């Protein structure tokens, strides 16, 4: 017996709806759970004070500074390199063994566990280059980690720019550079920005790789050549070593709120500046 198309349609829709609801539900549960346990302990003092007795008391100010430094440096290093690579791959070479190799390399890099990046960063930046456990070692390692994401998302965004735009740009007297920067990259900006925002999120939440490269010093870093503990690592140590679960949840709440704030403001900025053009 054949099931009427209207019924299969309804079944399919309800299955998809259920799955989507489950996904959203799990996400909402995790976030609520953490905020529930963390928010009551959040205070101005928690954000602005240094930790005392290993983080059992006091706040997370140095970790906020360390996280900002590592994330900003990582993205400032990775974004130009990644976008330039994507531009090179799409606009300055023809498809061949070379581009396939770069793309394959980027995809492999994206799949490598972060602890391995951490180990590489430790051996290369910390030991071989003598940068020590420091913000800069951590940032360089995280930059390598997010590079594939930036390359691939930028490449896709650039590829999605209609071919006709290139003809138009050339036809109006652009050089290749002008065509790329003023027409193609400009049109691809929302997609490129999405990739960059994603990697900001990944940099903020990265734990294993920064543990091995930026170290876990509790103090406020005075320069990028000093060790600093990030928020995610602080959370990990607080909970793993059983130092203070309340402060661990409070730290996690700071992280979650920061990531949501970044995504929301990026979304808003994009709609405001790019959607209109």
């Amino acid at each position: 017996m054949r099931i009427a198309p209207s019924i299969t349609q309804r079944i399919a829709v309800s299955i998809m709806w259920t799955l989507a609801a489950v996904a959203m539900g799990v996400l909402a549960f995790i976030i609520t759970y953490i905020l529930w346990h963390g928010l009551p302990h959040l205070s101005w003092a928690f954000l602005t004070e240094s930790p005392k007795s290993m983080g059992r008391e006091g706040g997370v100010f140095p970790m906020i500074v360390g996280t900002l430094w590592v994330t900003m440096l990582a993205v400032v290093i990775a974004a130009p390199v990644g976008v330039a690579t994507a531009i090179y791959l799409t606009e300055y070479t023809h498809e061949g063994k070379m581009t396939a190799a770069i793309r394959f390399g980027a995809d492999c890099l994206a799949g490598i566990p972060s602890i391995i990046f951490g180990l590489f960063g430790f051996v290369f930046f910390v030991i071989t280059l003598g940068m020590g456990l420091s913000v800069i070692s951590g940032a360089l390692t995280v930059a390598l980690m997010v590079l594939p994401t930036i390359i691939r998302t930028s490449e896709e965004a650039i590829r999605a720019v209609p071919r006709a735009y290139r003809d138009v740009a050339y036809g109006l007297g652009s050089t290749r550079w002008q065509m790329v920067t003023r027409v193609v990259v400009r049109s691809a900006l929302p997609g490129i920005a999405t990739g960059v925002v994603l990697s900001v999120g990944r940099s903020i939440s990265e734990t294993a790789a920064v543990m091995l490269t930026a170290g876990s010093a509790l103090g406020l870093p005075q320069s990028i050549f000093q060790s600093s503990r990030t928020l995610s690592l602080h959370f990990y140590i607080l909970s793993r070593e059983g130092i203070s679960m309340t402060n661990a949840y409070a730290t996690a709440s700071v992280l979650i709120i920061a990531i949501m704030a970044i995504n929301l403001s990026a979304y808003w900025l994009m709609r405001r500046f790019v959607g209109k053009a």
Partner: protein
Amino acid sequence: MTQVMEQIVQSVPQPAGPVPAKMVVEDFSASFGEMQVLKRVNLQIMPCERLAIIGPASSGKTTLMRSLNRLNDMEPQFSREGRIQLDGHDIYHPQTDVPALRRRVGMVYAVPTPLPWSIYENITYGPRLAGVTSRQRLDALVESSLRASFLWDEVKDRLDMPGTDLSGGQQQRLCLSRVLALEPEVLLLDEPCSGLDPISTARIEEAMVELKRKYSIVLVTNNTKQAARASDRTAFFLMGELIECGPTVELFTNPKHQRTSDYITGHFG
């Protein structure tokens, strides 16, 4: 003494010889990979004329147009032989300034493609690259080019609206304005009306009548009626070959070749 002589010589009106062609296509062949798309084409584009190019699909019309402003250079498979001259200079000479060439030989494509920016930015993009920075001059270019393509009255109050929000016919006229703002010498229109309604088509044909006072216009069209009413000379292409070229009235009333006559009477294509 010699100076005086020179002045006299210069002031004497030149003998009214034949007007030199604006562009000359000489034994020009083009291929994509193994496939030859244009076969030893010889064609002249005169100043202040509207030259129509007709012929069935895939006969190489677009390829010829894109060779006239060197847009085919970007195609990895493209190769060519023969010469194309603009005012007597070989455009494929290695020292040609290609962006400058493209400003002199402007092109409008079959599919209207406004860039996803405001009307104003669409039009000023080219002039800005060419070094025009004065706001007044840019404003003037926007107005004059929009007037020339009969779009000014429809958009003058909303120049900051995205070009992509215009109707298809308006978009194509915006594309025409954008090219006119570069003050080119030759205008290449590749089936500019193929997707447009009759009113927009009429607007563009109207614009061409005015524009030919200043420019050489090459109009590719798949509509033989349009060629008949909106051109001074017509060239008929078939499978990469130029079959015949002559004054439009002659070509349509008294074609020299059987294949031309078959095409214009609608027996094929």
